């Protein structure tokens, strides 16, 4: 850049800034007025309370996809001696409900091109929305299972399902339709963990069972008085809606 260019752009910058200054004052003025006049408090109530229900019917997933989600959840966090599994805690419901949020359509992301296969540190680069990831990912996995074992994922034994999922996670099993490791690690596994450990108001973590399993006391936010106590925290968990587990 020549020094002349530098001069021009500095002048442009100053001109633009000066033009915008009154606007900035107006906006700042309004913000101040809103916070100073009266008791305008930020709303503190969260999204509606939708805990898991026994007879849930999926609204996004087809019945075949719903069977896949349930089977995959049961293998990713199975019920064992440590605690309940993802299916028992309503995680499939959680994932289906997430498909109805703006997130599922990529509505909270920048979704314009260009679309490059960037390095992981650049974050999610695909043009596929989460909904598309699930629709295409489940179809691709079932196609792979048909090709190799001649049956859908849900019909495999637990050991075979584990093997398929592990290979997808490692990247040794993938599809030409989409990178399956991204679907698995970036969506399926992540959403299963969210549903399992998230607040019960979103449909998973029924009765805070996952929190009780790990001894997490929920949303009390502060435990300063217990620092230095040589005994376990004595109270069970509490949820965002104030319920106790």
């Amino acid at each position, binding site marked *: 850049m020549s020094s002349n260019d530098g001069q021009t752009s500095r002048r442009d910058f100053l001109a633009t800034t000066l033009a915008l200054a009154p606007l900035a004052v107006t906006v700042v003025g309004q913000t101040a007025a809103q916070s100073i*006049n*009266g*008791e305008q*408090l930020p709303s503190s109530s969260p999204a509606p309370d939708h805990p898991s229900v026994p007879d849930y019917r999926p609204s996004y997933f087809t019945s075949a996809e719903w069977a896949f989600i349930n089977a995959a959840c049961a293998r990713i966090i199975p019920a064992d001696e440590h605690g309940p599994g993802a299916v028992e805690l309503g995680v499939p419901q959680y994932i289906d409900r997430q498909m109805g949020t703006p997130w599922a359509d990529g509505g909270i992301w920048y979704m314009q091109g260009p679309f490059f296969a960037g390095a992981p540190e650049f974050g999610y680069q695909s043009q596929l929305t989460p909904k598309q990831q699930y629709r295409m990912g489940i179809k691709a996995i079932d196609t792979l299972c048909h090709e190799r074992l001649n049956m859908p994922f849900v019909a495999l034994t637990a050991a075979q399902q584990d093997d398929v999922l592990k290979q997808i996670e490692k990247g040794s099993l993938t599809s030409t339709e989409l990178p399956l490791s991204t679907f698995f690690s970036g969506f399926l596994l992540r959403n299963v963990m969210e549903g399992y450990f998230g607040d019960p108001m979103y449909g998973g973590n029924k009765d805070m069972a996952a929190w009780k399993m790990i001894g997490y006391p929920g*949303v009390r936010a502060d435990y300063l*008085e217990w620092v230095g106590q040589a005994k376990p925290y*004595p*109270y069970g968990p509490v949820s965002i809606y104030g319920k106790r587990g």
Partner: protein
Amino acid sequence: MSRPARNRWLIAGLGLIAAATVVVSAVVYHVPDPAISPALTHRTPDATRGEYIAVLGDCAFCHTETAGPSYAGGRAFSTPLGTIYSSNITPDRDTGIGAYTLADFVRVMRLGVKPDGTRLYPAMPYTAYAKVADEDLQDLFAYVQSDIAPLPVASRATHIPWPLSIRWPLALWNAAFHDDSRFVTDGSKDSQWNRGAYLVQGLAHCGTCHTPRGIFFEEKDLRGRSNLYLSGSGLDATSPINLRGNSGDGLGRWSTADIATLLKSGRSEHSAVTGTMADAVRHSTQYMTDQDVTSIAIYVKSLSPAPEHGRASFVASDSTMSTIMAGSERSPGGRIYLDSCAACHRLSGSGENSTFPTLAGNPSVLSSDPSSLIGVILEGGRVPSTAAAPSGLAMPGFGWRYSDADIAALATFTRSSWGNNAPPVTAAKVAGIRDQLRSGRPDH
């Protein structure tokens, strides 16, 4: 009864009615004399000093609609009779008070009577402003007339149904309850105490909210003659606290500096203000001189305790904290406190200095009428941002999270823990406050 006897009674009755009509008419149609000292005509008013008088009187808050132009009126006040709106007090000649003379201004400030004889509702605290000295009113008038921009904003009509909307009975109300005498200096007290008493009883009109009212909505004491003065009240869905020397629900354990700090910054070691008092701090008390807030604090600290009967007590105790720490807190209110309140107000109920109010021994928690406590739990509150303490800290509301019974249990727990000893709160009381807050919202 014989006929002559009956006639005598009839005549006596008619005579009484006629006499009463004459007396009532004399009271009702009389436009009273504002009684200004003749010496004022030789005094040069000081508008700059008048601006500070306006701050002391907190004129701007009531006479400015939320986000509206200053002093143009329009702020809504709900009263037991209905909604009334503050008037335009800019010097616009048609819609404001630009055509007022000093006598007109003083008459409305002290007697609540407009130049045309219309009576104001005592929501305008002329019952307090009557105490204000001639010179202060003259300077205030000079400020309003010369330094405020005239704005043509017509006053909004009141929403009071007929026949309650008829205003002449206010003359009778004034005759019965208004004390229009000036403040009288108490020679047995020093000048700072007297300055404090003058401000509290007059311009700062503390009694408007903090003095209990009788069945005719009259303040039970307008000039600090009894120990009911500033002893706490109930107003809309709030319960302004007892400012007298009681050690439970009053300011008995506060120092003069604590009170002055609260007025300057909106918070103190013990407490913080929200709601209407936050507005008073935001628009008025934070701008008072250090000397004036200290004078107010000295006067308030001199007030003897209100009658103790039925009032809360406080004797610090750590048994609540030990029960919680032992893992044996089982009461519904105690568990809610642990889940939703302790992160800020701490298990000890002692909060954090000047940040999260102390609940142990807090007059708002211990108030005979728990309305303000319930209101803050339901809807939260915001501490005003002041020059002395700019952070406008807020508490979120918990009305969405808990039922009336839950909130009653929680309020009862806070009123009976850490040494607090105040009567329990019922779910019905919480339901009432919830309704009042909901119907008081502008979108309703």
